[in-house]
C-alpha cells in the first residue's frame, strides 16, 4: 500500500498546490514534496533485495488489482519495486524536492501552476518507475510528457514555443512507435495480462507464435527496433538527440534539473526493462550497431559540448555524452556493465542536476549564460562556484564521487564483454570521451569562473542566496556519499541485474 | 386481360384532351396580340417579378396549425369508427386513453402557439410603415 499512498499523496499535493496562492506556492510545494522523500526513504529502509521483478524475483511492496479487460488481455494496477527501480524512485523524490527549492528564485509568475505541475510530474515519474503492468506504465510514461510540455512552454525562455512543441512531437511520435511495436509483441504472445513479469517470462519460454503471418523471430526483431527507437529518443542518443539542447536551453533551471536528472533516465530505465530484459537475443543480434550508437553519442555529444558557447548547452550536450556511457554499459550485458549503467543513471541524475542548478545560479546573478560574457565569478560568489567546481569534477569522474563508481563499472564491464563483439575497441573509444569532457568543463570553468572579474551585462553579482546554494550543497553531499559508499545502491542493483544476464558473458 | 380495358381507358383519357386541343388549333383564327400574353388579361399591370412576391409569414403559421389538425382528423376518424368495438375488446381505458393523450399533446401545442401569438394577426413594422406612407400620399 505504501506505493499507492506515495503516488496518491503526490497527486493530491499537486492539486492542493494548484489552489494555493502564488506567494506561498513554492514553500508549500517544498513542504509537501518532503513527504514523498521520506516515503521513498522508508521504502528503502524496508527493502530487501531479491532478484529482478521481471524475471520472477521478489517484487517489493507489490499490489495487483485487475482493472479492465480489453480484447482479451487484462490491464491491471500492478506496482512494485526491485533493485533497479528503487534507486530511481529515491532519485526522483529527492531531486524533485531540490528542484522545487531551486525554482524559488527564477520562477516569478504563475507559481502555483508551476509547482503544481512539478508535483504532478513527480507523481507520474514515480508511477513510471514503479508500474509493472505495461498499460499502467504507459499511461504514467505519457502523463509525464504533459506537465513537461507546459513547464517548458509556459515558463521557458524566448524560444520556448518551438522547444516545447519539438519536445512534445519527438517524444510522442517515439511513444507511438514503441507502443505499436510492443502491442504487436503482446498480441502475438497470447498472454492473459499486460503484467511485465508475465510477458517477460512468456518471451523467455518461447511462447511467441506467428501473428498475422509474421514469424516469431521477425516479430521480436520488429518489436525490439520499435522499442529501441521509442526509448532512444527519450534517452536521447545521436541522431535523435536534437530536441534535448533546445528543450534544456529554453526550460527554466528547475525544469532542466528534472529533465536531465530524471526524465532522461526514463529512457535508459525502459531500455533496460524492455529491450535488454525481454529481448536479449535481439540485443545480441544488434549489439554492434547499438554499441556504435553509444560510442558515437559519447564522442559526438562531447565534441558538440566542446563547441558550445552557452553554458547550458554545454551541460545539455554533455548529458547526451553521458547517456552514451549508459547505453554502452547496457549493451555490454555483463553484471558490471548493466549494474554500472544502472548506477550511472542515479549518479548522472544527481550530477547533471547539480550542474544545471549551478548554471541556473550563475544565470540568476548575471542574466547571461554565454561563456565569453563573463569571467572571474569565483570572487563574487565563492560558495556557489566552489560547489560548481566540485560538481564538474564529479562529472569528470573523480574517484570518491558518484560519477566515478558508475563509469568505472561500465568500463570494467564493457571491456571484458563477450556479448558485444570488439568490446575492447568500443570501450577504448568511449573512454576517450572522458578526456573531452574534462576538456570542455575545465575550459568553460577557467573562462567564466577565474581570472579578472568582468561581466558584459548590467547586473551586480553578489553571493547567491542560501535557498539557491542549499540544494546544490545537498546534491554535492549526496554525490560524495554515493561515491564513498556506492554499495548502498550497487548491491541491490547487482542483485536485480544478475538474473537478466542468463545469456550474457563475463564478469 | 383486364389490363386491356385499363390501357384503353388511358388511351381515351389522353386522346380526348389532345384531340380537342388539336382540333381547336386547326379551326381557330390566329390573331397574335400583346394583350393576350400579359399575366392578367383583365388589364391589371403586374408589378415586380413572380419570385419577389412574398406571403406574410403568418399565413404559414395558420397553414401549419391547419396541417397538424388535418392529420389529427385522419387519425381520429378510423379510431372513431372502431371505437365502440374496441371498448368491448380492450376496455375503455385502453381505447380512449391513448387518443386523449394524443389530443392532449396537440392541445398543449395549440395553446402554446396561441398564447405566443401564432394566430393573432400582428403587422410587421414594415407593413405598417408602408401603409402609413401610402395614407400620407
Amino acid at each position, binding site marked *: 500500500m505504501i506505493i499507492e499512498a506515495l503516488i496518491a499523496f503526490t497527486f493530491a499535493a499537486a492539486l492542493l498546490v494548484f489552489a494555493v496562492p502564488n506567494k506561498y506556492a513554492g514553500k508549500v510545494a517544498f513542504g509537501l514534496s518532503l513527504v514523498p522523500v521520506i516515503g521513498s526513504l522508508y521504502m528503502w529502509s524496508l527493502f530487501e533485495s531479491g532478484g529482478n521483478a521481471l524475471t520472477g524475483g521478489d517484487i517489493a511492496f507489490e499490489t495487483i488489482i485487475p482493472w*479492465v479487460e480489453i480484447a482479451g488481455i487484462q490491464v491491471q494496477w500492478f506496482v512494485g519495486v526491485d533493485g533497479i527501480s528503487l534507486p530511481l524512485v529515491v532519485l526522483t523524490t529527492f531531486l524533485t524536492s531540490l528542484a522545487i527549492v531551486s525554482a524559488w528564485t527564477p520562477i516569478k509568475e504563475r507559481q502555483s501552476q508551476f509547482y503544481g505541475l512539478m508535483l504532478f510530474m513527480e507523481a507520474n515519474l514515480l508511477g513510471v518507475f514503479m508500474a509493472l503492468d505495461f498499460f499502467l506504465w504507459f499511461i504514467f510514461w505519457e502523463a509525464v510528457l504533459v506537465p513537461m510540455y507546459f513547464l517548458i512552454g*509556459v515558463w521557458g525562455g524566448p524560444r520556448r514555443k518551438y522547444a516545447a512543441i519539438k519536445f512534445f512531437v519527438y517524444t510522442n511520435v517515439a511513444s507511438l512507435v514503441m507502443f505499436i511495436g510492443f502491442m504487436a509483441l503482446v498480441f502475438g504472445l497470447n498472454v492473459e495480462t499486460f503484467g511485465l513479469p508475465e510477458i517477460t517470462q512468456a518471451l523467455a519460454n518461447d511462447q511467441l507464435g506467428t501473428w498475422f503471418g509474421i514469424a516469431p523471430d521477425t516479430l521480436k526483431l520488429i518489436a525490439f527496433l520499435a522499442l529501441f527507437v521509442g526509448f532512444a529518443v527519450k534517452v536521447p542518443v545521436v541522431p535523435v538527440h536534437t530536441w534535448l539542447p533546445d528543450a534544456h536551453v529554453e526550460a527554466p533551471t528547475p525544469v532542466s534539473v528534472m529533465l536531465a536528472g530524471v526524465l532522461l533516465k526514463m529512457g535508459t530505465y525502459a531500455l533496460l526493462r524492455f529491450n535488454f530484459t525481454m529481448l536479449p537475443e535481439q540485443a545480441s543480434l544488434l549489439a554492434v550497431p547499438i554499441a556504435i550508437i553509444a560510442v558515437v553519442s559519447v564522442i559526438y555529444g562531447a565534441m558538440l559540448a566542446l563547441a558550445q558557447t552557452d553554458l547550458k548547452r554545454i551541460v545539455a550536450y554533455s548529458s547526451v555524452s553521458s547517456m552514451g556511457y549508459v547505453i554502452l554499459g547496457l549493451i555490454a550485458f555483463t553484471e558490471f556493465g548493466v549494474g554500472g549503467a544502472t548506477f550511472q543513471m542515479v549518479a548522472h541524475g544527481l550530477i547533471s542536476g547539480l550542474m544545471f542548478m549551478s548554471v541556473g545560479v550563475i544565470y540568476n546573478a548575471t542574466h547571461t549564460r554565454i561563456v565569453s560574457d563573463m569571467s572571474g565569478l569565483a570572487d563574487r560568489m565563492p560558495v556557489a562556484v566552489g560547489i560548481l567546481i566540485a560538481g564538474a569534477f564529479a562529472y569528470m569522474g573523480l574517484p570518491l564521487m558518484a560519477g566515478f563508481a558508475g563509469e568505472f563499472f561500465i568500463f570494467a564491464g564493457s571491456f571484458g564483454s563477450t556479448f558485444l563483439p570488439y568490446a575492447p575497441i568500443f570501450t577504448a573509444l568511449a573512454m576517450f570521451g572522458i578526456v573531452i569532457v574534462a576538456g570542455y568543463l575545465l575550459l568553460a570553468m577557467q573562462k567564466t569562473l577565474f581570472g579578472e572579474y568582468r561581466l558584459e551585462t548590467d547586473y551586480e553579482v553578489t553571493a547567491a542566496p542560501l535557498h539557491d546554494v542549499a540544494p546544490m550543497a545537498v546534491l554535492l553531499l549526496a554525490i560524495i556519499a554515493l561515491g564513498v559508499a556506492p554499495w548502498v545502491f550497487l548491491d541491490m542493483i547487482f542483485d536485480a541485474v544478475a538474473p537478466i544476464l542468463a545469456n550474457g558473458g563475463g564478469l | 386481360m383486364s389490363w386491356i380495358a385499363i390501357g384503353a381507358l388511358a388511351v381515351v383519357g389522353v386522346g380526348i384532351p389532345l384531340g380537342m386541343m388539336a382540333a381547336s388549333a386547326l379551326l381557330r383564327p390566329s390573331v397574335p396580340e400583346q394583350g393576350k400574353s400579359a399575366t392578367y388579361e383583365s388589364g391589371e399591370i403586374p408589378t415586380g417579378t413572380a419570385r419577389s412576391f412574398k406571403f406574410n409569414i403568418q399565413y404559414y403559421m395558420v397553414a401549419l396549425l391547419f396541417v397538424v389538425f388535418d392529420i389529427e382528423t385522419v387519425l381520429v376518424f378510423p379510431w372513431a369508427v372502431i371505437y365502440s368495438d374496441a371498448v368491448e375488446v380492450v376496455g375503455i381505458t385502453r381505447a380512449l386513453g391513448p387518443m386523449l393523450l394524443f389530443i392532449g399533446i396537440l392541445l398543449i401545442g395549440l395553446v402554446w402557439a396561441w398564447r405566443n401569438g401564432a394566430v393573432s394577426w400582428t403587422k410587421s413594422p414594415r407593413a405598417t410603415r408602408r401603409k402609413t406612407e401610402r395614407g400620407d400620399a
Partner: protein
Amino acid sequence: MDPTVVTTAALQSQLPEWTALGPVIVLGLTGLLLLTIDAIWPKRNANTTYAIVSAAGAIIALGITVWYLVAGTGQETHGGAITLFSEAIVVDGMALFFTAIFTSVAALVIVASHDYLKGHENSAEFYSLLMFATTGMALMAVSNSLVTVFVSLEMASLPSYALVGFLKKDRGSVEASLKYFLIGALSSAVFLFGISLIYAVTGSLLLTEISAQFADGGVAGFAGVAGIGVLMIAGGFAYKTASVPFHFWAPEAYEGAPAPVSAFLSSASKAAGFVVAFRVFAEAFMPLLEVTPAIDWALAFAVLAVLTMVVGNFAAATQENVKRMLAYSSIGHAGYALIGLAALTAGGPHNGDVMGAAMAHLLIYGFMNTGAFLFIAMVEYWGVGRTFEDYAGLSQKAPLACVAMAVFMFSLAGLPVFGGFFSKYALFASAVSAGFWWLAAVGAVTSALSLYYYSRVVKAIWIEEPNGNLDVIESKPTGLYAAIIFAAVATVLLLPGFPIALETAEAAASALFA
C-alpha cells in the same frame, strides 16, 4: 404483447412493463411541461425556470436510465430485452446505454445554455426543442422497427434544424440551418426509399422479422433490390453520423449553430445515428453477411470508416477556426466509431467486443466533445474571436476552464492520460483481434495526426501570450463553468472507471449478436 418475454426481471416484477420506457416518457413530458409554462406566462421569458425544469427532466431521465442499467432491466441477466407495442419498441442494454449518453449530454448542454441564452428572447422554445430532440434520440435507441426508426429519426432531426437556426438574426446560423435542413430532407428521402425496398423484399418492417427473412435465404432472388435498399439505409445513417462522403453539412452546421447546440449535435445526435445503425445492421442485416456475401455492407462501412478517419482528421488539421476544427474532428471521431460496424464478421467471436468498444468510445466522446464545444460556447459568450490567434493566452484569464480544455483536447487526441485513450485503444485492439489490423492502423496514424491540431488549441490558450484580445472578458458564467468542469471530471474519471463503461457496453452489444 410478446408472450415469450420472461417477466423475471427485478423491475418488471414490481413495475408494469411500459415503465421500461420511463426515460423517454420523462423527456417528452418535460418538453411539454416547458411549453405549458410558457403558455401560461408567455411574456415572462423565465430563462432560469426553464433551465432548471429541463435540466431536472434530463437528470431524472438519466437517473432512471442508470437505475435500469444497474438493475439489469432488459438485459441478459434479467430475462433479456423487453419489447413493447408489438415489438416496435425494444428496451435492452444498448438502448439504455445510449439513452444515458443522450441524457447526460443534454443535461450538460442545458446547464451551459442557461448562460448562453441570457437576455435572449424565446428561451422556452430552445429548451423544449432540446428536450424534444432528446426524446427523439431516446426513441431512436429503442426502435425495433424500421418505421419507428424513421419516425424517431425525424423527431430528433426536426427540432435540431430549428436549434441550429436558433440565432435567427445571425446569417451564419440561418444559413447553417437551411443547409442542414435541405441535406437532411434529401437523406431522409433516400433513407425512406431504402426502407421501402427492404420492405418490398422481406415483407416486414420489424428488425427481427427482416433478420429471419434474410436468414432463411428466401430473398435470394431479390438480392439486387435488397442490396440497394441496404446501401440507401447505410447512406441515411452516414448522413446522421456525419460520415464521409455525407459529411458536408456537418462543418457548416456545427460552425454556424450556437455552440451549445453544436455540442449537442456533434455528441448526442451523432451517437443517436450510431445506435440506430448498430441496431439495424447488427440485428436485421447481420444474416446478409453470411447468406448473401455479395451484399457486404461491412466492407462498405470499412470504406466509409477509412475515408471518414482520413478526411476528417486531415481537414481538421488545416483549419484556422477552432469551432470548425472541432467540427472536422468530430467527423474524424465518427470514423473511429464506424469501426464498430466495419469490423463485424458473420458469426465473428469478436463482434460484441468491437461494437462494445465503439459504444464505449461514443460515451467518452460524449463527455469530452461536449466539453470542448461548451468551452467554445464560453468563448463565444465572452465575445473573444473564433480563430486560434484569438484564443491566445486565455489561460491567464480563465485557468480552470483552460485546464479542462486541455483535458478535452488531449483526451480527444487519445493521449494515454485520460478516458479517450482507453476507448480508442479498446476499439483498435478489438478490431485487430477481429482481423482488421488495417482499420486499426489507419486509426492509429490518424490519431497521431490529430494530436497536432488538438495541441494547437492547448498551445494557443496556455503558451501563447495574450494579444489584447481578452479585454472583453468581464464575467465568469457559472453554468457554463460548471458544465465544462463536470465534463472534464467525467473525462478524467472515465480512465479509472473505464471498465464500467466497457463492460456494460460489451454486454449490451454481445446481447445483439447472441
